[in-house]
């Protein structure tokens, strides 16, 4: 079993290496339909498909036997672990090894399914892109890194995958690097997450040094003092907030929309953002034991879910709407974790992974069709793109939490968990209120996006030239099959995943959620109905500005962090040139000055020399007499 897990992780890595190094060697054929090197397509799809097949086999193997506990443990009770080697560091050793648990099998399935879908979809989306080989290789590397996070048995090995994901997101967000804005977004994504990761690494140190092992199983088994656990989990939370885009480290995610749409689907649905939630669930006994950490998480989640939902309501860029909705939905998962229900969190993670990937891929098809990200350029697309319309409707229904779509069940599970949360009263109250209000706002922004994209008068104009970075020429047709197939397949779990009913449905709270969501949707519908060409977000009134700018957080960060650092950098250069090096040059000058003074004695006057000699002899004689 552990060999299979190792192969699952390694195959995409080898695919990435092959794709990067061998795609163009010796020419090779160019695929006529996709306009990219055929070999690159094979390197992209085959390893991921292999991983997917092996994952199925692993799931079948893991499903044997009986287990109790969380639903993933009863689905996949068989566990395994193995290690390749132990690296002696001089302190606590690193064990290079993997561990297969129920949770990792579950999340592993999600990862490979979405990754495979994205690889297939990208072949169509990046039609004729000369950088397709490196692009697909980075996706493979990304997949491999995420799978390493999922299956790793050691926290430091996990950290390797964790950081490599950050790198891949940097490379992929910056795929269209001709635009400096995209490049800046990529840098921002890497730096913000890396800031969180420093905390994460220190959290790993705290746990590892306290438990005398970096192995996850050893750490979970160790009896750690509460203070250590609280410190460590709070530090880990920094990394979780960075990767899972939680307040206050969420600002990179909306900007990350600069990348190609399939990347948005991959990063913002299934993999990188899921990693933060996954690691909390993986180490959940520690978080359960650390109530202060969960209080902090609850407050962060409460702020994040409502703030991001409001921001989503005011965006004009369809992908940014989805990005803010991702922050909001991830905050739901964080809320469930804070409330003490890892099951609800992972359930929502799974359904969200399916429906958000679906939404992004649909949005990609729409953008591909329209040639713009902006909803003000869309409208009336339901006739031109029937399949995309149907599938995206399913996605939005799931996002709003309408039955029978999957989101209805998982969101209900989260809210039920929050209602009965074991937290500090204030935090619990804040979280619950925020969760309910957010349900309404979610209904509102999802309805707005749906209406402005598919209904109303057609706004689409044919663009003369495709703008690099976003656009393709409007051709008035539905997307190519390589893009439609993944959409169609992802629609199934987005619709049906809820029926697994892994968590009991709480009918009372479900009814309340549904009413609130419909209320939000109804208000937007009423505003839209009154003037279909105008943006229903005008209902926000004076709050529209702050919401559209996400409450000016980027500006604040730029003022508080970025500018002082740059200012300090200038200061350092100045100090280096004047003070530190000035001292060096000053000592050089002082030496020269001194030598000029000493040179006065060397004036070539023999009388002076003889006088000096005599004076010296005299001094020595006197000295000998006095001291002797």
């Amino acid at each position, binding site marked *: 079993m552990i060999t299979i897990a190792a192969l699952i992780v390694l195959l995409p890595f080898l695919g990435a290496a092959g794709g990067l190094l061998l795609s163009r060697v010796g020419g090779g054929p160019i695929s006529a339909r996709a306009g990219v090197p055929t070999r690159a397509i094979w390197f992209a799809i085959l390893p991921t498909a292999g991983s997917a097949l092996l994952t199925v086999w692993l799931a079948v193997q893991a499903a044997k036997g009986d287990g109790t506990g969380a639903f993933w443990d009863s689905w996949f009770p068989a566990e395994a672990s193995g290690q390749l*080697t132990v*690296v*002696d*560091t*001089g*302190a*606590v050793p*690193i064990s*290079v090894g993997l561990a297969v648990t129920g949770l990792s099998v579950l999340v592993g399935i999600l990862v490979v399914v979405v990754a495979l879908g994205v690889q297939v979809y990208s072949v169509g989306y990046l039609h004729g892109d000369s950088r397709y080989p490196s692009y697909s290789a980075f996706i493979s590397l990304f997949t491999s890194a995420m799978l390493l996070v999922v299956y790793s048995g050691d926290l*430091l090995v996990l*950290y*390797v995958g*964790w*950081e*490599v994901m950050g*790198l891949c997101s*940097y490379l992929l967000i*910056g795929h269209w*690097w*001709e635009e*400096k804005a*995209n*490049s*800046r977004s*990529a*840098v921002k994504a*890497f*730096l913000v997450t*890396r*800031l969180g990761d*420093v*905390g994460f*690494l*220190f959290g790993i*140190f*705290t746990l590892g*040094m306290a438990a005398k092992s970096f192995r996850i199983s050893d750490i979970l088994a160790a009896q750690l003092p509460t203070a250590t656990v609280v410190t460590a989990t709070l530090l880990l939370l920094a990394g979780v907030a960075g990767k899972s885009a939680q307040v206050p480290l969420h600002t990179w995610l909306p900007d990350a929309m600069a990348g190609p749409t399939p990347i948005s689907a991959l990063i913002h649905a299934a993999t990188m953002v899921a990693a933060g939630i996954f690691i909390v669930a993986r180490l959940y006994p520690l978080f359960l034991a650390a109530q202060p950490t969960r209080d902090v998480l609850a407050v962060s989640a409460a702020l994040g879910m409502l703030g991001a939902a409001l921001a989503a309501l005011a965006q004009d860029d369809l992908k940014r709407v989805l990005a803010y909705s991702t922050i909001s939905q991830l905050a739901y998962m964080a809320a469930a974790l804070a409330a003490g229900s890892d099951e609800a969190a992972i359930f929502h993670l799974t359904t969200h992974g399916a429906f958000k990937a679906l939404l992004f891929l649909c949005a990609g098809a729409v953008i591909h069709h329209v040639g713009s990200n902006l909803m003000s350029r869309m409208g009336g697309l339901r006739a031109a793109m029937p399949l995309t319309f149907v599938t995206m409707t399913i996605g939005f229904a799931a996002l709003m939490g309408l039955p029978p779509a999957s989101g209805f069940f998982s969101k209900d599970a989260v809210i039920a968990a929050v209602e009965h949360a074991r937290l500090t009263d204030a935090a619990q109250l804040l979280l619950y209120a925020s969760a309910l209000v957010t349900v309404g706002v979610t209904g509102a922004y999802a309805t707005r996006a749906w209406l402005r994209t598919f209904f109303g008068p057609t706004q689409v104009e044919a663009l003369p030239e495709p703008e690099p970075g976003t656009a393709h020429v409007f051709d008035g047709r539905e997307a190519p099959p390589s893009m439609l197939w993944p959409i169609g397949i992802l629609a199934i779990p987005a619709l049906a995943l809820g029926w697994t009913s892994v968590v009991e449905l709480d009918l009372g709270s479900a009814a309340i959620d549904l009413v609130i969501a419909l209320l939000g949707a109804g208000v937007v519908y009423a505003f839209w109905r009154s003037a279909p060409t105008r943006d229903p977000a005008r209902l926000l009134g004076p709050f529209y500005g702050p919401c559209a700018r996400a409450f000016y957080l980027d500006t604040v960060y730029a003022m508080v962090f970025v500018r002082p*650092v*740059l200012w*300090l*950098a*200038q*200061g*350092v*250069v100045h100090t*280096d*040139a*004047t003070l*530190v*090096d000035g001292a*060096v*040059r000053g000592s*050089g000058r002082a030496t020269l000055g001194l030598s000029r003074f000493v040179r006065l004695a060397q004036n070539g006057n023999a009388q002076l020399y003889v006088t000096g000699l005599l004076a010296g002899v005299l001094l020595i004689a006197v000295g000998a007499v006095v001291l002797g």
Partner: protein
Amino acid sequence: MNWLLIALLAVPGLGTLALLAGRPSTQTPAPATAASQIEQPPSPALAEPPAPGTEPTPSPALAESPAPVTEPTPSPSLVAAPASGIEPTPSSARASDRSRAATRIGLVTSGLTLVLSIVLAAVFDYGSAGRMQLETNLAWIPGLDLRFHLGVDGISLPLVVLTALLTFLCFGYLAGQTTPRPRALAFALLVLEIGMIGTFLALDLLLFFVFFEVVLIPMYFVIAIWGGHDRRAAAIKFILYTLLGSAVLLLGLLVIYAQTGTLDMVQLAARHGAGIARTPQILAFLAIGLGLAVKTPMWPLHTWLPDAHTEAPTVGSVLLAGVLLKMGTYGFARIAIPVLPEGAAALAPWLGAFAVIGIIYGSLACLAQRDLKRMIAYSSVGHMGFVLLGFATLTPVGINAALFANIAHGLITGLLFFLAGAIKERYGTADMTALGGGMLARLPHLGSLLTFACIASLGLPGLAGFWGEMLALLGAYQPGAGQSRPLFLVFMVCGGIGTVLTAAYFLVMLSRVTHGRPDETLAVGVDVRPFELAAWVPLVALTLVFGLWPKGLLSLTAPAVHLILGVGP
């Protein structure tokens, strides 16, 4: 005695003799005049007399930047004269012949040395990597009790191989180019190699010092003759700075000798400071530490480094960053810490403090740099800060980290300087504003390699740069006995912030240089040439190997580290 270690020193020595003997008497009837004619510099920059009052300009990056834009002639950088640019006149044809002959001697010699170092790595007994192996102990100056004592253990072996590799790659790089005075350059590099390898093999304090000093002279000439615009000022600064450091170092070594009566490093290390009182230990550690810190360099003794790196030719920068800086840190691991444990314990907080200041300071300085080579030079200050932090923790993990980061920095920064040199040669400038951006579009392979090297240097896990930094921070989390834990926790947090700043300046640089739309009016020449690729691929490969398999290095250094700290594994 063992012939292998002697051979490692003798082969480059024979190479220098071959270069001396290979004066062109067989090629031209009048060697002296012909040589002097041929060795006339092709660029006016060489003939130019040293600027009066060789004060370094306050900001060489600023002073230099307009030059390539306004001057129609190619950059005065002498390595910036690729083979294609040479006119086929008889004298230059002969010059390129001679260039090839000299470089070939260098290539063969350094190749042989590399083979010997690989043989050394092969016969090395990995089961007892902590023990000194293949020792050679000959009387040298019996009157002074000086011995020609060489040996290799898990700490020095990787450094010896790294030195041989980098020197060989430098010759490989030179083989594809035409440089002025090729024979002299080859001679200087081979002498440099003797000094560097000797430093890592020496087991006698004074022998160590001698090799340590041997390195300075050829490096001075490499900078002063083949350097860029302000090379003289930079070279003088380099030599004065390091000579001053060496003087202090010698004082410290003599204190040890005066206290113990022996210069044998193995014996001294085995005593763990027994026989030296606390105060002399502190004094000796201070003196030796200062001397080594100049070389490392440690903040605030670093200002020679940016100037030297900016002005040095590519191969000079590579060896300077790749090996010379390591001689300073190697001294900490080999002499200062094992021989003077009490001195180390007393001064470790200061060492740690200067190290983290260097990390933050170096990173901030990088953020504001405009010159690519200068930025990489400052990044060395930051990276060596991690190495020093590792030493300052006085824990096995910290010292392992320092030794790992040493090697990783040599590989990665060596690669970075190769790439920066290639960029400067193609664009005629290393000023980031003048470079313009869009390198990934104009020179995709060079741009990709630069991206790789930067990512490796910012410490991405899975590449060699990560493990050293991470373990240094881990060491600071739980410092050695007797050290203040809160203080080191502060150091750890500062180091963590330093890693973010490191990522920031590298990514901002990549964004400025490799991303964006290229300026189509700039002529940039060809993408990576085969000989360049041959010189760089080994570095890329080793960066990956040690990143993915850190055990390869850690299993070598760990036993030795346990031994020098006197603690059981």
